[in-house]
């Protein structure tokens, strides 16, 4: 498994953990204390920020050649998949309030950073999954 795959795995695990914990916490808090305060459960999404430590945890290989054309191609494709998925999320998140509330409605400005966070998480998650799909999800007998 190369460095890119390891970082991708870290992102997938960390983002999944953050999303699952925040959904669970929000649901539990909703039952106990009601809606405005239940949003505190979304704080668990901050766990996803640990994904940013990936390049520090998995340092570059000391070999002279660390990536070739295939690796670049995979990374390019994965970036496009990530951008496409996040664009979709932005589109849905922006158009849903318009469809539900109507053209003369208005929403809280806090909705905007939430769209940004959702799009960012989608970008990194889709990028990582696309990398893992293209490389294969595990080792393929290569020397480590």
């Amino acid at each position, binding site marked *: 498994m190369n460095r890119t795959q390891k970082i991708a795995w870290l992102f997938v695990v960390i983002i999944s953990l953050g999303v699952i914990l925040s959904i669970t916490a929000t649901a539990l808090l909703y039952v106990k204390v009601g809606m405005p305060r239940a949003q505190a459960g979304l704080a668990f999404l901050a766990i996803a920020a640990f994904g940013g430590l990936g390049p520090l945890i998995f340092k570059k290989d000391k070999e002279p050649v660390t990536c070739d054309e295939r690796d670049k191609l995979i990374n390019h494709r994965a970036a496009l998949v990530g*951008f*496409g998925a996040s664009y979709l999320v932005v589109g849905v998140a922006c*158009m849903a309030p318009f469809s539900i509330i109507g*053209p003369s*409605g208005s929403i*809280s400005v806090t909705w905007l*950073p939430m*769209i*940004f966070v959702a799009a960012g998480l989608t970008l990194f998650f889709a990028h990582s999954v696309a990398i893992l799909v293209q490389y294969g999800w595990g080792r393929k007998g290569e020397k480590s």
Partner: protein
Amino acid sequence: MNKTQKCAWFNLIVLSTAMGLSAIAIGVLYFIVGLPMRGALGGFGFMGILGLLGLTPILFRKDKGKVQYDERDLTICRKAAVVAYAIFWVLFVAAAMVPFFVLGPDGTVSVTYLCAMVLGGFLTVTLLQSIVTLKEYGWRRKGEKP
């Protein structure tokens, strides 16, 4: 000029026409006709010209019996898409965070602002993708056979 370049030129012309006419119409309605800004924004109706972008696959069909793409074309297309989306992301973050800081957490925004974000994102991506494609290929014929 290959199919990708023709598509990029077509996109660029349609986008420029739609945005130019919209800006002119809004300016005329607001400054010359004297409509209030809300009414003058009706000039955005010229954005309907963007619907012509949907004709791209019909106008620029695949040449029969010719190789359409090689690695270089694919690399150019991918590079153009990545550049376009990367710049879109920067603008999107600005569009999402600036109102939050300006209005404060208790402020509200019209839902039409969200729609404008989506439209702006689409325009940005299409425009930049076309420009980067043309820049990578060169803006005109380079002596290749038609």
